[in-house]
């Protein structure tokens, strides 16, 4: 009897035993690599020594100047941390959206976050084109954040007002409509103000290059709430896999779970989009790559998305700094360029194994 207990428990939890620690190690290595590599600054091997030196009770002479340390701590470190936050948030939000909508092609931008944020950013860039600094807070991330949340709210109000629709199809269709509307308004604004097109375009492509500790502090509260809430729903996302009807018969309040998950995922996504722009590809590819390797249970897919999403974006951010320096390659281009072949490779090897 006791041996058979471990049999079911191991199928649910056993795979995570070495995968999670391995991913934590991968994240540590990615962070280290991220702060060591860059076009300017100290020789790479001095960085880990100096980091050790900064720990309490340890004193090592790394030979690093205070100028070099400033490059590490004020430029590279916030960029690496922000990449980790953005990557993990987009991945876990994408995985959760795919779970509640039971659709593998869904990304966290499904319900209009991206288009709303884009519209918000466009409005601010247009109005504030002189870039005057008489604002107390930077209006750009705030407008993008609110635009994203408002767009999803509109989608939800329209989509859930459809009567007798127990599936989520009307919600998805409402998302498509809201996205088109916001995009049309954005295009109209840009057409009237063509001088800001370049600026808006560079925002849309996404960037981590201007990251500061301020950006990190800005998003941390939202991202924390979102991540914790999503992780707490990982078991229910597994129950939802049998479909709305059977999940209801199993005692799940399906529409409530869907609402909570959508709100949480949207909050995190809108926050990271506000500081990093629209970095595509991460929210759809990272969860799928994980599923191909570890199976499709959300109990393992969600924590792994959190860890490996961070690793993926830190690593994807490295080539952009070195390639055609000093003009940086946008991160969105790199994620697709690295991610697509990587994903195809996993897809092929998995098929060969079967």
């Amino acid at each position: 009897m006791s041996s058979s207990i471990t049999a079911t428990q191991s199928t649910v939890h056993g795979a995570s035993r070495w995968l999670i620690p391995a991913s934590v190690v991968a994240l540590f290595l990615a962070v280290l690599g991220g702060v060591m590599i860059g076009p300017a600054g100290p020789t790479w091997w001095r960085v880990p020594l100096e980091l050790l030196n900064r720990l309490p009770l340890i004193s090592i002479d790394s030979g690093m100047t205070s100028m070099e340390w400033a490059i590490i701590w004020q430029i590279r470190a916030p960029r690496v941390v922000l990449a980790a936050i953005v990557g993990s948030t987009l991945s876990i939000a994408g995985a959760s959206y795919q779970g509640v909508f039971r659709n593998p092609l869904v990304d966290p931008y499904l319900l209009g976050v991206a288009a709303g944020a884009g519209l918000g950013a466009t409005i601010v860039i247009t109005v504030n084109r002189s870039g005057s600094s008489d604002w107390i807070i930077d209006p750009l991330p705030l407008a993008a954040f609110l635009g994203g949340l408002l767009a999803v709210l509109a989608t939800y109000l329209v989509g859930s007002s459809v009567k007798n629709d127990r599936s989520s199809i009307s919600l998805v269709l409402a998302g498509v409509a809201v996205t088109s509307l916001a995009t049309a308004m954005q295009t109209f604004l840009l057409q009237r103000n063509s001088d800001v097109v370049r600026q808006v375009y560079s925002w849309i492509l996404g960037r981590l290059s201007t990251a500061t500790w301020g950006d990190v502090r800005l998003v941390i509260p939202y991202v924390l709430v979102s991540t914790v809430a999503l992780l707490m729903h990982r078991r229910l996302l597994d129950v939802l896999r049998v479909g709305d009807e059977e999940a209801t018969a199993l005692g799940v309040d399906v529409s409530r779970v869907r609402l909570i998950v959508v709100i949480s995922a949207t909050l995190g996504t809108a926050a990271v989009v506000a500081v990093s722009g629209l970095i595509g590809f991460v929210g759809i590819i990272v969860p799928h790559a994980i599923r191909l390797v570890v199976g499709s249970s959300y109990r393992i897919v969600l924590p792994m998305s959190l860890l490996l999403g961070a690793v993926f974006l830190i690593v994807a951010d490295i080539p952009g700094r070195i390639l055609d320096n000093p003009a940086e390659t946008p991160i969105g281009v790199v994620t697709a360029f690295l991610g697509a072949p990587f994903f195809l490779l996993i897809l092929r090897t998995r098929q060969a194994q079967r």
Partner: protein
Amino acid sequence: MTSLAFENVSVQYDGRTAVHDFTDTIKPGEWLCIIGPNGAGKSSLLRAITGVTSHGGRILVDGSPLTARSSRRRAQLIAYVPQSPVLPSGMTGAEYVLLGRNPFVTHFGHESALDHSMVNDVISRLDLADLAQRDVDTLSGGERQRLVIARAIAQEAPILLLDEPTSALDIGHQQQALELVDKLRREHGLTVVSAMHDLTLAGIYSDRLALMHAGHRVAHGPAEDVLRAETLGEFYGVSVRVHREDDGTIVVVPNRTSLR
């Protein structure tokens, strides 16, 4: 053991009434089989009991209305085997059966060791050890059906609903599945409500039949009262012969009406 009563239950979809004023009382431990042609309202009635569709009138479990209970509490009382269950690909048999423990796990909680041992117990009692570690995608129709029944049993609910439990199975697996339900019913004192198309099997396994037609309950009682050639002819529009075997089994045989 738990009773299930219907008081003027009606079910509507988009203004169309699928079930009209259904009234019946199912005694604790009884097996009621709902029969009737396609679209008669059998599945709608079962779906109303699970809470998937809203209903008019009252459905009472041991005297108290179902709508007064939370969805979790309702799932602790009622287990449901749907007509075409979804078995998510990539799940193992054991993980699938574990889903049946959902009503006993809190919203943010996780299954306890007790839930896991309960699932293992169900798996060994239903002789499903071979399927426990297999991907549900690789299972045959009969194996999948046994797994879905196992999930319902793991739910430990006193009322079991079965929607066409045998429609996808061959005759051997039909018998196997219904024997399993019958055995579990006796062991656990389950109250069973099933919708079935095979009238002979419905008569053999149930205590009582309820015949539905266009949303109304038009006949009910033991098999020999309901399974009559005239009754079936009227409501199914078929021509059948009804035999009574020596052991009391009622056998329904369709007549060939085309010219030989």
